[in-house]
């Protein structure tokens, strides 16, 4: 079994090209997970455009992609109209909703391509674009990969996803204001150094993942002014990674105001926190153009 995870877009909220974001990248959320011959695409932010370009370079084989969206805010769908395989008749793109019968993601993707927003209508795309769902809460097996979703805290809602095969597991949890689900958010604010009391069901969802890709947009100082915006403190997702016993934590959905140096400092603080808990979790910042091999 082989499992490769490639980051095509790691930025949150809005694309941020420029010298200050050169190292970690300015494209918005898009992650490719390739498990054996199956390809899963997690979110379709502006990084999806470059994934499409790369897929064409890989060879003439038709593109088969299973597309999972955390939610449908702009920074998670904006790459789709520029995803070249969507225009090719041999491509097959499966757009998954969450639970049985959920077709919202397919509908909203097509909505952003109405003529008021984009010159090419969704119905003009030549690919075979199929609306599907993940079935019951226990999830679904897609080409041998167990796929589950988890309801998160974000304005309008969002979902985390777990992909697992042969004991190798990737959890993708972006746009999740974990801090709002703490047992005592006020206590966490009073004593930032204390371990956070996390929702047990979220810890269970992430338990034992080889890689947790998690929104870690804010520093402790920033979060105070942004409660309710839908994103967590990086320190809180660090505690999540430690308590769930994951192998690696990729801090994701970088704040558009954060420069590369700022992100390095944030990751440094998270590593100090991991060391304080005596954990072996490897923490790093998700970076555009980086590929990990798991298992």
């Amino acid at each position, binding site marked *: 079994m082989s499992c490769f995870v*490639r980051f095509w877009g790691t930025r949150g909220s809005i694309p941020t090209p420029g010298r200050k974001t050169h190292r970690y990248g300015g494209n918005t959320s898009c992650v490719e997970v390739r498990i054996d011959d199956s390809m899963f695409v997690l979110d379709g932010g502006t990084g999806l455009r470059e994934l499409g370009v790369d897929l064409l370079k890989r060879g003439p084989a038709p593109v088969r992609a299973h597309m999972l969206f955390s939610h449908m805010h702009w920074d998670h769908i904006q790459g789709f109209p520029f995803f070249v395989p969507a225009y090719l008749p041999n491509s097959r793109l499966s757009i998954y909703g969450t639970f049985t019968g959920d077709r919202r993601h397919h509908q909203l993707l097509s909505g952003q391509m109405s003529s008021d927003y984009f010159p090419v209508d969704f119905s003009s795309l030549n690919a075979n674009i199929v609306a599907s769902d993940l079935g019951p809460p226990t999830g679904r097996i897609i080409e041998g990969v167990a796929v589950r979703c988890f309801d998160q805290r974000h304005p309008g809602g969002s979902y985390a996803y777990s992909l697992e095969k042969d004991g190798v597991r990737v959890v993708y949890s972006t746009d999740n204001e974990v801090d709002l689900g703490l047992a005592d958010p006020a206590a966490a604010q009073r004593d930032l150094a204390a371990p956070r009391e996390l929702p047990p069901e979220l810890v269970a969802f992430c338990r034992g993942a080889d890689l947790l890709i998690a929104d870690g947009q804010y520093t402790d100082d920033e979060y105070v002014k942004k409660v309710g915006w839908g994103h967590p403190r990086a320190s809180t997702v660090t505690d999540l990674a430690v308590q769930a016993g994951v192998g690696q934590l990729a801090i994701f959905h970088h704040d558009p105001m954060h420069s590369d140096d700022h992100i390095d400092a944030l990751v440094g603080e998270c590593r100090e926190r991991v060391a304080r808990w005596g954990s072996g979790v*490897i923490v*790093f910042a998700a970076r555009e153009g*980086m*590929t990990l*091999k798991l298992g």
Partner: protein
Amino acid sequence: MSLPDDPLDSATRAQAVPVLTARPSVRSHQLQQVEGPGAPQLIELRGTSLIIGRSPEAEVRIPSSSLSRQHVRLDRGDDGWTVTDLDSSNGLYLNEIRIYSAELRDGDTVQLSDALFVYFEGR
């Protein structure tokens, strides 16, 4: 007494201005080996692809028994160079994190077992 409107400007001699072309210095991308057998050395990244490994056939040979014969490949792309692990025994580390592949950025460290490199973007 009245002053001229602009004494300095009146001294400027008007003429046709030829367009001048500057030739900024061009420096290739580089890997600087700072630790391990063979260090220190500066490797100019030229061409489209090169192999680093223990093999005598590798474009950049590192005489270390802990490197694989073909440890990593570097490929030139539109935006610099990409490093990829060639299924090596001891892996590829970018800024201390084990990876499979990455597009390199200025100041990145690349570790192949006991050999440590720093990447510098050209201009």
